[in-house]
């Protein structure tokens, strides 16, 4: 596949991500911060997010015990996750976290549990999407092309 085609594919893909709400404007901001001094900024931040989130999700899974749950701790974790996801623009994850926090305040364990599953699901989805995106980017770079700059036009 030649470069131009790959680039178009990339644009389409990222558009779809925005359309479907997986990513929001913050992700574009991250892309704007990537320049020749910092060529892998987006990948680095996203990888950091993945590591962080996985840890948080593990902790959350452990913390949400149907027998006895420390809501404060859970809230703290979810807060962290919300912060991280909003920082990179993972919109759906962030929304799920917001909902999670509300239920935490209510101290509703079943709801929390459900929210946790939701969050995990959203996280997995966005992770896959982002990994695909990065793979596409790598292909483009390997073929000698450059990543097109996106403009938020919708």
């Amino acid at each position: 596949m030649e470069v131009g085609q790959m680039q178009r594919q990339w644009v389409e893909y990222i558009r779809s991500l925005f359309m479907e709400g997986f990513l929001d404007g913050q992700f574009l901001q991250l892309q704007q911060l990537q320049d020749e001094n910092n060529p892998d900024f987006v990948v680095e931040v996203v990888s950091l997010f993945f590591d962080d989130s996985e840890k948080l999700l593990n902790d959350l899974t452990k913390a949400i015990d149907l027998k006895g749950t420390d809501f404060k701790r859970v809230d703290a974790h979810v807060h962290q996750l919300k912060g991280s996801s909003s920082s990179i623009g993972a919109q759906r994850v962030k929304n799920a976290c917001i909902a999670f926090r509300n239920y935490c305040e209510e101290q509703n364990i079943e709801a929390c549990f459900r929210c946790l599953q939701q969050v995990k699901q959203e996280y997995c989805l966005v992770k896959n999407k982002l990994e695909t995106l990065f793979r596409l980017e790598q292909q483009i770079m390997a073929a000698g092309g450059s990543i097109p700059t996106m403009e938020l036009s919708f």
Partner: protein
Amino acid sequence: MESCNCFEAQGPPDELLMKYQYISDFFIALAYFSIPLELIYFVKKSAVFPYRWVLVQFGAFIVLCGATHLINLWTFTMHSKTVAVVMTSAKVLTAAVSCVTALMLVHIIPDLLSVKTRELFLKNKAAELDREMGLIRTQEETGRHVRMLTHEIRSTLDRHTILKTTLVELGRTLALEECALWMPTRTGLELQLTYTLRQQNPVGYTVPIHLPVINQVFSNNRAVKISPNCPVARLRPLAGKYMPGEVVAIRVPLLHLSNFQINDWPELSTRRYALMVLMLPSDSARKWHVHELELVEVVADQVAVALSHAAILEESMRARDLLMEQNVALDLARREAETAIHARNDFLAVMNHEMRTPMHAIIALSSLLQETELTPEQRLMIETILKSSNLLATLINDVLDLSRLEDGSLQLNAATFNLHAVFREVLSLIKPVVSVKKLSITLNLAPDLPVYAVGDEKRLMQTILNVVGNAVKFSKEGSISITAFVAKSESLRDSRTPDFFLVPSDYHFYLRVQVKDSGSGIIPQDIPKLFTKFAQTQSLATRNSGGSGLGLAICKRFVNLMEGHIWIESEGIGKGCTATFIVKLGIPERSNESKLAFVPKAPVNHGQTNFLGLKVLVMDDNGVSRTVTKGLLVHLGCDVTTASSIEECMRVVSHEHKVVFMDVCMPGIDGYELAVHIHEKFTKRQDRPLIVALTGNTNKGTKDNCMRAGMDGLILKPVSVDKMRSVLSELLEHRVLFEVI
């Protein structure tokens, strides 16, 4: 038998006599025959014999004589006619040859004799040449020795080595028994034995310098033979039967550097000499030859030269050491001066702030007090206080300005400003004073004077104000006129300023401002003093006008910094005064404005858009958002340090950080506490970094909390690049930013 006509024996033959004659004739003939044979034999043997013809002749003569005598043998008895004939012919031939030979000999014998004389002559010549050869050889030997000695002597610049080498080499060359050097002592009254050849450590013999023999040697520039018994030559104990060898002494001039004057050669009277004494081996019957003496003289000269070189070297080394010492001292002095300057600058910087603060307090409060209800006496007092404090404030400012100007640490700002507005402002500032003094003031701006210029507005205004202020101050009545126009080179032809040149260019123009007043004037002699700081003119008129005398000095320095010139003219007391200055200002480029229009991101940034190197600290416990914020700030060019907790933040924060961004929506962690800590750590306001809170929290309570905790700003997350940029510029300009929530 017929009787023959030949000789006949007379009387009876004497038998004995006849016998003897017979024998003699025989021997004669034999000898005569053998002589030529011998001759031929020996001549053949010898290589050279020039007279062969003579030899033949002589041989013939002898042979014939021999033949004659031989034939004579037969004539003693009766002999036949043939014998007689043969005898006769032989005799005739012999006679002929003899005569010829006799004649030849007359020529030949002188030749032969002259050969002998020539031989003698040549022998003498050969002997002479031999002698000359001998002489030349000795001369060449001497020359070689001299060269070798010179080389040895001149190969070192060390005094001791030079002298030692001389003695050693001389001793070797001339096969001397002893060689000694006597040097004059410090007092110059004695000669001390300093070096000898054979004795390693000469005991300090001294000899008074005014001995007749020494004087004799010193007054002669050649080697002088001296007696072996004189004190300078008596170096070794005489061992009885030995005949001491001949002794020669020569002077060695010692040149002192002080002897050299620039134009003269050293005076003979101040010359000092050393004495070199050379002794031939005792009992050797050797005598001093002329060539040896010559050698000694040459060597002595060389030694003198070498010693003078050594002296010069010593001198230059000493001078160099001295210079180095001086250098070190100067360096130290320079460093001390620098330290002093630094100390003064520090002092001034501190005083700057410390002095101004109370001054402002006084002035502000006094003005406030003026607004209240006061009795006339109180009002008078307050006015005096105000006037004095204003004066003091001006003085402080002036002094500080001047010291910064002197350091060269003052730098002009360059910005585009409205030139016409500056003049109007000066006018409006000075108008009250002018109207109080009942003077009139006019301002004339030339039509070609640009409206906008690039330069330091504040300082230009200060200069104009100062000059105009002086004009007002020193005028009791009359008018003041201010003219401003663009200076062209022609207008400077009437040069008061012969070494000031206008360099025309497309980017600059020269502003010329002339302030004329009809006031008290200045004596022309005082004009140069005007621009010196603290100097006041002595005329009565100025005595009461106050002022520190710094104003014009500062103006001059500002004008100089603006690459211009300032001068004052006056015709005398009572005739008014004209102050003129020319400064270089930039022409604002039109193209800069058009560039601004193309900036795509429209945010109106009044302040900086470049935060290169700005040190900031980001505190956030969430790794992802911390990385994102850091990336944002790095993208804008800041130097970012991160901290993930309050403790870490407090450890890392320093007065170098200008802004601290902290995330305050961390549950369980009181971000406000950090603000308090920072306030505690940095008591001085200018050291403290600005504290900005980042929060995703949109309730009003957050803002109040932030303000109460002493934070300088609050921004809502998410933060975009543009938002951060405008936030930073706003923060750095106003030092506060609270986003509307």
